[in-house]
């Protein structure tokens, strides 16, 4: 998960939970713009430098603040899409993440992206199967899997 867009995050979570339902072993690797999706909106951490504070403010703080990649229209499009999803019973990102946890989907977070954007481990979500790692861990999983998607 490279993208930080709502639509793409939804797609990847649907594929991940669907794959888990089919009996597949699933790992999601979050990197770059995908990293802030996993921030916990309720957690505050101090001790960040200027750039870290800036990234922290400008990037979404968790699934609730993630925007659409198209038709965002200064946030209006995202609000409309979220209400439409609710109306049509489509699960929210938050619910999809909970579901992923229930279905033993493992999540890897790119340590380098975290460091680059000044995110600290303490500000990320509570998730039962969370690993902070680098590209080798991702490749190890990718090499042994039949399906790899870059979203």
């Amino acid at each position, binding site marked *: 998960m490279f993208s930080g867009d709502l639509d793409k995050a939804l797609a990847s979570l649907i594929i991940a939970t*669907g794959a888990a*339902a*089919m*009996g*597949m072993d699933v790992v999601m690797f979050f990197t770059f713009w995908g990293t802030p999706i996993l921030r916990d909106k309720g957690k505050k951490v101090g001790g960040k430098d200027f750039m870290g504070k800036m990234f922290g403010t400008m990037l979404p703080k968790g699934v609730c603040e993630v925007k659409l990649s198209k038709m965002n229209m200064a946030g209006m499009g995202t609000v409309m899409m979220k209400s439409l999803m609710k109306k*049509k*019973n489509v*699960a929210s990102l938050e619910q999809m993440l909970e*579901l992923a946890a229930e*279905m033993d989907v493992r999540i890897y977070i790119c340590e380098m992206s975290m460091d680059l954007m000044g995110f600290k481990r303490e500000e990320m979500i509570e998730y039962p199967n969370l690993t902070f790692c680098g590209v080798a861990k991702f490749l190890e999983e990718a090499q042994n899997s039949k399906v790899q998607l870059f979203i």
Partner: protein
Amino acid sequence: MTEDIKVDKVVDLKGMPCPMPIVKVSKGIKDVEVGQVIEAITTDPGALADFPAWAKTSGNEILKTDQQEGLIKFYIERKA
């Protein structure tokens, strides 16, 4: 006919869009023993393609598919 299939558990998936039907059915089937049958009821038209794909991949068997008035019923035997 459905009369000759003994259903051990009914999984109601009405109103749920993708991916919930296969997610819930994969959980539901774990509530019965191998050899027992669940009846999954969905309103998602995509399920007609999705359920056979799910069954094939997860190693379970769809014994029968019923379609009536916007409802699709799958009778699925737990094989794995």
